[in-house]
């Protein structure tokens, strides 16, 4: 392993590759931080600039862009409550609350440090165990995935800040929205009203930007007081000793959870931050702090996010199978450079394989180097008067959404979901569980139907397969733990009236 790693560092530490890694991280961060431009859009936008490079350099730069974009997505989640992708939805919950309390710098710093730590661990993890862990991914068939998604949905219940009943509503609504679009198997249009742009279903970016981005702008326009508080209070820029002490354990746990879930193909990495948040909230002495700016709610999920982002490379590099949309884009990038990913990349292109792993670590270091100084800049941005800030958010959102598919109608849809999100706020619903339901819903239906076709219609397949059964047991346990106190609480509330 060490000889391999040194080969990797030999490749990654060449001056050119270092420069490319730095450039990638920097550009990725700067583009990814624009509200409305998530990691997938960022990578798609920046993909062409790597065309002229040699394959190893291009991939190192792309990996840099990927980390930068990931972190950029978390930055917008904290600063303006717009998650760049599904994995940073959780960060909005406490991260943005921290920003509202004048602790944006601390939140960003914690996210950067936690991510760096998680990145380091995950890199070692990939280098040491990448090959054997591949088998884990192959143990998961459709039935196991379905059970995993069910477990994921149970996490969503715990995410709720207020009423559990309303959280359930949002999850189901997310699931319902996820079924819009052409049916994968039969090609029948479902709930599209014959409107062609809906044929591929609702885009995650469109939904997230609408219910988070636009709706947040509308909410802020209404409450002049709260948004001015953000501007008035600028606390310390970096986490202090107390903050770090509070974050250490969540970071460790988040790294472990995110790292393991990230290996699973079929976008297991999405679950990492949610699982980490659930765990921290359950372990906390005072769970009511969560959703009101608890630092553990940023440290844990952000570490899980980055660890998962990193270990998601394992199925790609060892199996040659991309586990999610971002990785599919990386496959495209590799193919353009003449490297077709497959199980033999490790043996056939060792300098590429180990060079990339080494550059992951270097990329994480660069991210820290770039972002700690930038924290001050981002926090200063919060001082821009809101009357200028929200039109800027809006124009970036519009251009970003438009650029994903070059479809103007996507922008109009986002506006529609903005109205929808505003209604949800008014009705006291939290959008985060809905987004989780939405993301998991598509996979869940796909996996359910696959599993049932393979098992010829027997639901027992979910219980007969040990991993699947185990996951379902965990799901039930989570649900029971989540529901019991709240049932008691509701009773208490009534008693105190």
């Amino acid at each position, binding site marked *: 392993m060490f000889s391999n790693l040194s080969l990797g560092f030999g490749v990654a530490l060449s001056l050119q590759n270092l420069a490319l890694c730095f450039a990638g991280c920097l550009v990725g961060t700067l*583009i990814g931080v624009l509200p409305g431009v998530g990691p997938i859009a960022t990578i798609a*936008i*920046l993909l062409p600039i790597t065309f002229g490079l040699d394959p190893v350099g291009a991939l190192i730069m792309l990996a840099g862009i990927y980390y930068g974009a990931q972190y950029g997505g978390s930055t917008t989640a904290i600063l303006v409550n717009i998650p760049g992708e599904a994995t940073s939805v959780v960060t909005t919950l406490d991260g943005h609350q921290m920003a509202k309390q004048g602790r944006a710098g601390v939140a960003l710093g914690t996210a950067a440090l936690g991510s760096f730590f998680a990145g380091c661990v995950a890199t070692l993890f990939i280098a040491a165990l990448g090959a054997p862990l591949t088998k884990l991914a192959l143990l998961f068939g459709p039935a196991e995935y379905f059970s995993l998604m069910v477990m994921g949905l149970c996490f969503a219940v715990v995410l709720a800040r207020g009423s559990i*009943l*309303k959280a359930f*509503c949002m999850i*189901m*609504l997310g*699931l*319902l929205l996820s*079924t819009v679009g052409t*049916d994968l*198997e*039969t090609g029948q249009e*479902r*709930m599209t*009203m014959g409107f062609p742009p809906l044929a591929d279903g609702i885009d995650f970016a469109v939904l997230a930007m609408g219910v988070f981005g*636009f709706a947040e702008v*509308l909410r802020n*326009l*209404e409450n002049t007081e709260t948004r001015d508080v953000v501007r008035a209070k600028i606390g310390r820029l970096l986490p202090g000793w107390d903050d770090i002490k509070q974050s250490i354990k969540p970071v460790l746990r988040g790294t472990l959870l995110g790292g393991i879930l990230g290996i699973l193909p079929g976008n297991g990495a999405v679950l990492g931050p949610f699982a980490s948040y659930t765990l921290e909230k359950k372990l906390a002495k005072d769970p009511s702090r969560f959703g009101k700016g608890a630092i553990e709610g940023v440290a844990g999920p952000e570490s899980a996010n980055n660890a998962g982002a990193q270990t998601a490379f394992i199925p790609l590099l060892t199996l040659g199978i991309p586990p999610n949309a971002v990785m599919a884009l990386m496959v495209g990038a590799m193919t353009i450079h003449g490297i077709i990913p497959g199980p033999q990349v490790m043996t056939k292109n060792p300098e590429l394989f180990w060079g990339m792993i080494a550059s992951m670590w270097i990329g994480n270091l660069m991210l820290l180097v770039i972002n700690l100084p930038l924290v001050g800049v981002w926090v200063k941005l919060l001082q821009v008067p809101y*009357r*200028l800030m*929200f*039109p*800027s958010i*809006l*124009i*970036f*959102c*519009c*251009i970003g959404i*438009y*650029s994903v598919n*070059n479809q*103007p109608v996507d*922008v109009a849809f*986002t*506006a529609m979901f*903005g*109205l929808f999100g*505003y209604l949800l706020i*008014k*009705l*006291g*619903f939290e959008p985060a569980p809905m987004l989780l339901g939405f993301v998991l819903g598509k996979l869940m*239906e796909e996996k*359910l*139907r696959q599993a*049932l*076709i393979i098992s*010829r*219609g027997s*639901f027992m397949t979910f219980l007969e397969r040990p991993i699947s059964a185990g996951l379902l047991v965990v799901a039930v346990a989570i649900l029971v733990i989540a529901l019991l106190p709240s049932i008691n609480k*509701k*009773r208490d*509330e*009534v*008693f105190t*009236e």
Partner: protein
Amino acid sequence: MSLNQIERAQGLRVRSSQDLAAGLFMILLAGIAFVMSYELPMGTLRQLGPGMLPKSFAAICAALGALLVISSLRFHGEKLSGWSWRGVFFVLGAACVFALCIRGFDLGPIHVPQLGLAVAGPLVILISGLAADDLKPKELVIFAVVMSTACALLFKYALSLPIPLAPWLLGI
């Protein structure tokens, strides 16, 4: 007799208008979804049809909505608060104007030429800016020009995105 029972004895009345509206909203959405997926076949267990999950989810949504309605009659909660239509109108309107202008649009009798970012950009900022209650018109106009130029330079030139700039003037 516990307080709970006293409360219950007072009969059903709306104790949380927010929860009541939320419950009705869920039922409404579920109804729409059910109507829209009405014709989709449910399929069999072995081969689930395209209608199975949408209809099941819609049914659960409606049930949850009904639970919300019931709980709004039994438990105290938030009241519905005021609405601010000014924000909704200008902010979401601005996004829609962007969607209409960027590539042009034909909708029945309405024909919008392809105006590009050079027009759509400033329009987004100007229109959405009207939503602010501390509006400063002169500042907004300058900001619209500066910001649109910056966006054009960033997205069109630095990142060379295929976004139309001003096809009617520059041909790109």
